[in-house]
């Protein structure tokens, strides 16, 4: 029910109409649907328990992809394949804007059971020094570790329980230490030791506070407070000091977005929904990664890394592709979600996106 298509543009196929409606070149350009479907299979969509309406899935993704590819050179195509595969592991790639509008439901942006992957940027000695190599550290499915030759890292495995931790030192540093304070007695306890950082925090409510401590060199810091009844746990939120001032706001784009995401996740955590979105940490700091116990740990760890991966991927995409986005979206654009879905050409989508952003941003209060 793509009712926004003008009647006068009939005659071509739906893809052309959609493209023209979105302001993209139509018809006989060098790209077509088959090209993309064959080159960039999106395996996760079939595994996904939340099925996306096929018509909705086609549109946005295709448009975005065609836009991307149109603007990039042939050498970028393999890169694009990697990126899209990784992204599709992490997020629903469907252009669900319209379908969600119609159904009134919002399709979750993340995969319910995403794969664990860590994207790290490293400089090669070869020609493209800015190329980021996708390096998967902890998945039985992910393979790649090449220096120069990027390999597609698609995974069809959606069962998080099958993932095996192979590098306990990194993300899994504090694997499931079931907290001795699980049955919190009345003894209030506050944990600040970061060496014990990975703790059982399920069921804790999470809040961000700005703390002033004049004895500390960094007298102003942002902390994460986890509370359950009388039990408190405090985590540093390093490097993510909320920016208030005009000066400080520059160059901290990612931080803002991450903070926004963190708030949303906090609600999920509080409601104890036990899916892949549950345990998330908005910080890229490994020590801040919060874990849950039992078989979900890997899944949780994976989601912990989502933010890292998300940022890295989006950074890389930003370097490589030029998107037709408004300046506002660029400023807020620390999220890959914005990157992928955020190429709306019609006013409805723009306003919707703006609303979403506005909801997450911090309300400027009175002094």
């Amino acid at each position, binding site marked *: 029910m793509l009712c926004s298509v003008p009647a006068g543009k009939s005659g071509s196929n739906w893809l052309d109409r959609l493209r023209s409606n979105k302001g993209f070149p139509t018809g006989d350009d060098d790209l077509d649907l088959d090209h993309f479907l064959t080159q960039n299979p999106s395996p996760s969509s079939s595994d996904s328990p939340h099925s996306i309406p096929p018509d909705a899935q086609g549109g946005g993704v295709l448009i975005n992809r065609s836009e991307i590819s149109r603007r990039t050179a042939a050498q970028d195509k393999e890169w694009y394949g990697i990126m899209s595969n990784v992204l599709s592991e992490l997020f629903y790639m469907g252009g669900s804007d319209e379908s969600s509008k119609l159904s009134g439901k919002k399709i979750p942006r993340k995969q319910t059971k995403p794969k664990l992957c860590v994207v790290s940027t490293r400089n090669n000695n070869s020609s493209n020094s800015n190329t980021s190599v996708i390096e998967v550290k902890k998945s039985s499915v992910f393979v790649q570790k090449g220096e120069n030759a990027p390999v597609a890292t698609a995974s069809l495995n959606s069962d998080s329980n099958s993932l095996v931790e192979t590098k306990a030192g990194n993300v899994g540093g504090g694997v499931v230490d079931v907290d001795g304070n699980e049955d919190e007695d009345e003894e209030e306890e506050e944990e600040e030791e970061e060496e014990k950082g990975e703790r059982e925090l399920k069921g804790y409510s999470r809040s961000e506070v700005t703390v002033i401590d004049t004895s500390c060199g960094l*007298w102003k810091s942002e902390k994460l407070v986890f509370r359950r009844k009388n039990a408190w746990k405090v985590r540093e939120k390093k490097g993510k000091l909320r920016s208030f001032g005009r000066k400080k706001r520059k160059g901290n784009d990612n931080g803002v977005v991450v903070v926004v995401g963190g708030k949303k996740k906090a609600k999920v955590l509080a409601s104890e929904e036990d899916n892949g979105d549950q345990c998330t940490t908005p910080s890229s700091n490994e020590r801040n990664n919060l874990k849950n116990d039992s078989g979900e740990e890997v899944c949780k760890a994976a989601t912990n890394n989502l933010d890292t991966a998300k940022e890295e991927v989006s950074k890389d995409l930003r370097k490589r592709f030029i998107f037709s986005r408004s300046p506002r979206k660029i400023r807020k654009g620390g999220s890959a979600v914005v990157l992928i879905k955020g190429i709306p050409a019609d006013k409805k989508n723009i306003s919707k996106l703006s609303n979403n952003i506005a909801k997450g941003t911090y309300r400027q209060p*009175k002094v």
Partner: protein
Amino acid sequence: MGPIRGFRKRKKTEKKPEENASGSGSSEKEGPVDWWDEFFKRINAGIQSPSSGLDKFESIFKISRKTFDYICSLVKEDMMAKSAHFVFSNGKPLSLCDQVAVALRRLSSGDSLVTIGDLFGLNHSTVSQVTWRFVESMEERGLHHLQWPSTEAEMTDVKSKFERIRGFPNCCGVIDTTHITMCLPASDPTSHLWLDHEKNHSMVVQAIVDPDMKFRDIVTGWPGKMKDWLVFQSSTFYKLCDQGERLNGKKVELSKGTEIREYIIGDSGYPLLPYLVIPYEGKDLSDSKAEFNRRHSATRVVAQRALARLKDMWRIIQGVMWRPDKHRLPRIILVCCLLHNIIIDMEDEVQDSMSLSHNHDSGYHQQICGTADINGANLRDKLALYLSGRMPP
């Protein structure tokens, strides 16, 4: 030029003579006098009868002109950067003094943005922006006014002043906590975090105070639900003490073979630690313990007075704040503490006229922490013996 209806009601008489007196009082600086004269006329424009409430510099800003000028010099660089877009309603740009005046008035009176805007002839959003710029600048530029004693001479001075109060030897500070109450939306699920044990939404301010009522250490921003000792245990001060990097100065020999380390004192809301001495609990205390508690309580008054004065002087943090930004509020609190210390450092005479109330947290009952460290108990017993004069020579 703004409507100053509220102030007209408070009018009494004799504005002019007082204005002249205040003007001539600081006549050594020509420029500032001109600013004050103009400023004074502006805020009293359109008022026929003089106002007794707003006729003196000190009555508007709660600080002397000397301190005001010092604060202006502190924040000059930040406040004057790109200040051209701050204008009065009549289009005139705000000078440095104007901006500082607006911010100080906002912090000290706690009046609403609209009230301040009306008083100064400003849009209320300008009041907000100017105040926030001031806060941002002050927290950077004024932080050296709030520090733990850094030199031995400074610490010796602190100790000797404490000893003069009620005889506590080698005491370095008094710790206390107060609450900044807020009105938060009940619909917000995070609001419960700020609900304290008295069923108010509040933010905790922990202060360590010296005998001059200066703040030496401030921790704020924690939600009211956190108990006093939790706030303390999450503070850097606690960590430093635990690591032996603070309160690690000279020991004092009370008698032969009995010496005590540096310590601070606090109420029963804190744990008894080797460096934090709290009163004895219980009713039927021995004489020495009861005497200890009396002296302990009298010494702690400096912190209570300091916090009471802080709230009384800087009324933006007094009373119940209406849905404040909880990330900004700690910074406002810090700046109020800095201003509090600056007044003391400048030996501002406005202190003399301040009341010495020590009721800073009305409606709040004493929290009881109830944990005790054996070394802390030893220290306390030694002090009790010493203060009751029963310590063997």
